[in-house]
């Protein structure tokens, strides 16, 4: 791992631009503000989740509970807004408090009980989805006029694309995350944790605080994604967003972040999300794939992107390989 870490970011961006160009060439309708607006709006909740996932993965962890947290958030909001007269903003605050505490608890268990994040968050995934069921198995519509107000906040671009508020929230999340990760001590500590836990400890990184904060952020962002999702669908449903954690992980990894932690950029994740969205849009535009071919093609494209990335980074490193690198230390 001697190549400049920024390289993988550029590679991801190049991959996206290249892929978008190919798509637009095949289906000219894809080069429209509608499609661009859709990419932002439809992936807003996933994008926000992936920001939290980036923090977690950079620190060498993983968070499988996010999909369930989103579902729980939706149901929680829907039930609260149905059964009480609470204002949505208050409900949002309450929900964020819950999911942040949940994340912090997960982080605390991981740190103090020394358990692997994969398993702790897997249990968290069962728990949150279970709680969503307990709250309501039905899908519950949200009819509060505040929701209509937020949904009506959009900017309609010339050729019909609607840039909605939730897309903007996602972009704000990315900007905030970039600042936190690269320009604060906490952000640097996240990278340190991902590099090597024992070393980070010897170097004086406050492991406990950092771990708890990382998972609290992931929980909070999953809660925010839940709010965005509830705005997106005006409902809460306990069966929604199953498997979103895998989508988020895939986006982070396509974005060039190493799952082993310590290396990557949140901006890469943004392009990872766009690439995943592009794959789906492309498949719908094609519209001729059967259910099973859809799965195969999604898998195939995922594979193709990973290979493209490998090839690009390989081509760039062999030319400028510094000397100390071991054959492959991945």
């Amino acid at each position, binding site marked *: 791992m001697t190549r400049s870490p920024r390289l993988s970011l550029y590679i991801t961006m190049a991959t996206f631009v290249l892929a978008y160009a190919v798509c637009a060439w095949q289906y000219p309708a894809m080069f429209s503000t509608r499609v661009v607006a859709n990419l932002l709006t439809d992936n807003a909740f996933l994008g926000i989740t992936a920001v939290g996932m980036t923090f977690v993965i950079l620190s060498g962890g993983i968070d499988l509970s996010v999909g369930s947290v989103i579902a729980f958030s939706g149901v929680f909001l829907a039930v609260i807004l149905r059964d009480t007269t609470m204002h949505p903003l208050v409900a949002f605050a309450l929900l964020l408090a819950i999911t942040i505490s949940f994340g912090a608890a997960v982080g605390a268990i991981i740190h103090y*009980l020394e358990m*692997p994040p994969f398993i702790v968050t897997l249990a*968290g995934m*069962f728990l949150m989805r279970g709680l969503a069921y307990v709250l309501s198995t039905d899908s519950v519509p949200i009819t509060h006029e505040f929701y209509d107000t937020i949904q009506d906040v959009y900017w309609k671009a010339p050729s019909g694309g609607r840039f909605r508020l939730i897309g903007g929230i996602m972009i704000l999340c990315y900007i905030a995350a970039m600042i936190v990760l690269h320009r604060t001590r906490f952000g640097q500590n996240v990278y340190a944790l991902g590099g090597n836990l024992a070393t980070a400890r010897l170097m004086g990184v406050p492991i406990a605080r950092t771990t708890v904060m990382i998972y609290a952020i992931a929980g909070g962002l999953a809660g925010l994604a839940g709010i965005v999702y509830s705005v997106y669908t005006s409902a809460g449903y306990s069966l929604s967003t199953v498997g979103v954690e895998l989508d988020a992980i*895939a986006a982070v990894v396509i974005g060039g972040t190493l799952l082993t932690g310590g290396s990557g950029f949140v901006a890469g994740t943004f392009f990872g999300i766009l690439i995943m969205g592009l794959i789906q849009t492309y498949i719908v535009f094609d519209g001729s794939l059967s259910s*099973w071919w859809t799965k*195969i*093609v*999604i898998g195939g494209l995922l594979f193709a992107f990973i290979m493209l990335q490998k090839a690009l980074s390989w081509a760039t490193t062999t030319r400028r390989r510094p000397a100390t690198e*071991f054959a492959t230390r991945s």
Partner: protein
Amino acid sequence: MIGATFRRITPQLIILGIVLLLNFLVFPGFFSIEFQNGRLFGNLIDVLNRGAPVALLSIGMTLVIATKGIDLSVGAVMAIAGAVAASVVTGGGGWFTALIAALAAGLLCGLWNGVLVAFLRVQPIVATLVLMVAGRGVAQLITEGKIMTFLNEGLIFLGAGTILGLPTPIIIWLAMGTLVTFVVRRTALGMLIEAIGINETASRLAGINSRVLLLAVYLISGVCAATAGVIVAADIKGADANNAGLWMELDAILAVVIGGNSLLGGRFSIVASLLGALIIQSVNSVILLSGMPPEFNLVIKALIIIVILVIQSPTVKHALYLLRASAGSAVPEAHAVGPRNSPAKETRS
């Protein structure tokens, strides 16, 4: 040797005992076993029988995890193997051909994963994610999205038959577990796998052919998954490509972890993973027998799992150890396993 193994799996045995007891509390007839129509009947037998797929998966998964990898594709491989077996017998083939074809499909899937991980150096979780997504599509392609039913007695026997009064799946996973454990522990394979899981660079420099070994563990995992897939299909006399093995990879990983194996690779115990699989099945059994409404299934499962994991966590284990030590004759060496004392490289995965 035996003593060490036993000490290694004691926590799992205790937990299994507790969960079985829990079963007994919600359903007093839990431990009764009868002999009917030439086969054994009883909830305990069910636990062993229904635990078969996860047990089989956990065998391969243990090895993969020992190399610091993970195999998310096993559920999809199960679906593929079931579909292949079903399409062979509905196409007029015999059960043995079907079984071989299914295992070959599993090997092929393992080969794919293994090549990605060992040779193309793709991170295991991503490499196997590809097959997890695409594999189910392949299975559906074979069955065209239907449940492909079959009536081949030989194939059905693998999932629903009995040998010596025991359901065939129990025999199969026991045999597979014994075989793999034997191969891994009676040869140097186990140690070499552990070595690459702990420090691959150093292992490579020590002359270990890490690529071939990585490939091998994914192959084994593929075969285990294929066997599980055949059993599941045979059990319902049909290949259900849409649902066979769905999310089962998570159960398999959970089984390995409950078995006390580290997700960071290294030291492993297949026996402990198998016990982990049985623990999970016993938890499912509690849920089914308790008669609670299904909305509560996941919450109950989550809570039981959390308790199990907390009991197993190094910190709690250490605290218990200290407690015991201070109760009896205080042994100072206990500090050696304390959390602050591990200067070796530790990263979380």
